[in-house]
């Protein structure tokens, strides 16, 4: 599996860090203190302040959110899809914050079908 992983540095999740975020479009990953991914997401064209508002809103949904990382990109949708597929290939399931998406709607990187997809 050679999908491109998110390799940006982790940042502590606090008000100052969020306030310093750019208003651009892009993708993000939110994790707990142990590094467990809680949610992958994107700041799309409808976000009010791009990554700044999108990450703040997503972090507020997870009590254990402790850190995050992001990547500015206009191809936020396909990059988000790619990160979901990479995560699914690595872990066999989606992050808790993305579970409602359903694994059958996520692409498969690497070999073989996704067993849980039920296709």
């Amino acid at each position: 599996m050679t999908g491109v992983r998110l390799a940006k540095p982790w940042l502590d999740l606090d008000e100052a860090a969020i306030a310093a975020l750019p208003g651009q479009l892009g993708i993000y990953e939110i994790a707990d203190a142990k590094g467990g991914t809680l949610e992958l997401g994107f700041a799309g064209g409808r976000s009010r302040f791009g990554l700044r508002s999108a990450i703040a809103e997503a972090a507020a949904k997870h009590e254990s959110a402790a850190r995050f990382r992001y990547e500015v990109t206009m191809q936020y949708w396909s990059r988000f899809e790619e990160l979901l597929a990479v995560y699914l290939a690595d872990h066999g399931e989606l992050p808790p914050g993305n579970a409602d998406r359903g694994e059958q709607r996520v692409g498969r990187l690497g070999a073989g079908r996704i067993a849980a997809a039920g296709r």
Partner: protein
Amino acid sequence: MDFELSPEQKLILETVRRFVREEIVPLEADLDPDASELPPHHRERLVAMTKELGFYGLDIPEEYGGPGIDLTTRTLMAFEMAQHRAGLYAPCYGVFGGAGLAQLYEADDDQKERYLYPVLRGEKRGFFALTEPSGGSDPARAIRMTAVRDGDDWILDGEKTFISGADKADFGIVFARTDPELGRKGITCFLVDTDMPGFRVRRIVHTLRSTHYAAELEFNRVRVPGRNVLGEVNQGFAIANDRLSRNRIPYAAGCVGVALKAQEMAIAYAKTRKTFGDYLSTRQAVQWMIVDNEIDLRTARALTLEAAARADTGRPFRTEAAICKLVASEGASRVVDRAMQIHGGYGMTKDLPLERWYRELRIRRVGEGPNEIQRLIVARDVIGGSFH
């Protein structure tokens, strides 16, 4: 040609127009500007509506359960179905259903049971894999993927790129070289399951089109049973070529559709936006942009309908399909570009669909055969195959 619509066509088009404007466009206010899928509950509701209207599975041949609407009428419908933000690559978000992969209608009975019917029932998804890193414009020469017979099976080795939908598919229609000496007559078409050992989706390829991304595929000694050869051995190029010609007409129609909407938006904006005390529509510079749009639109629309009408009546349409594809993709790009200019700063924003169409239309000049290849097809026809 006479393009006077029949009463039935008028009724169909009015129904589709209302469907797009009343059911599809309002939903887009809540979707991401780059979205190409509807939330499942909306999708199910709208699919039920198109089935009720008798329009579901438009491109499925009548003998397989399609509604039996001719290509000219479907082309007119496609003009309407593309008139929303996602309309170029996801007309009406797919709620009118698709035909699946047209090559499967040429499959044998066993293959139809295993692939075609599950696709038509929505149980399986497939992809079409022709292009390789070595090129896509000249597949007969560019295909380097090999298929070597091993007993009753074939062993596939090689790579494919710019393949849409492969990461979510159950199988693919894959073209490989089975005789290196025979050029275009040495290509065979295979049905490859994505759980066959050796098949791998290597990576997603990010492009101007953020959704409906493409993928890079690897085939490492994939063993494919002989019963998965689609058509005849060494006759795969004809299967690919037929698909490419036929697809150019709906491909052109989508371009015309978004351009029609862009022109409608440009005119409406020009009649309401004032500069220096009067409306943009009173400025000759803007009037001429709208006139140039209209010329591009009418030209593309007429040529696309001509190609469809020829196909409907069993006449050769390869040249006409090439012409309409290149005229529509280039003309629509100009129309959307001028519409953005008329809208000024707003035209550049994701508040309006123009910027998405602008990006996606750029791909249309390369997809389904670059426009230079379309010109080559026309040149071969009007000058002669040898160019002498």
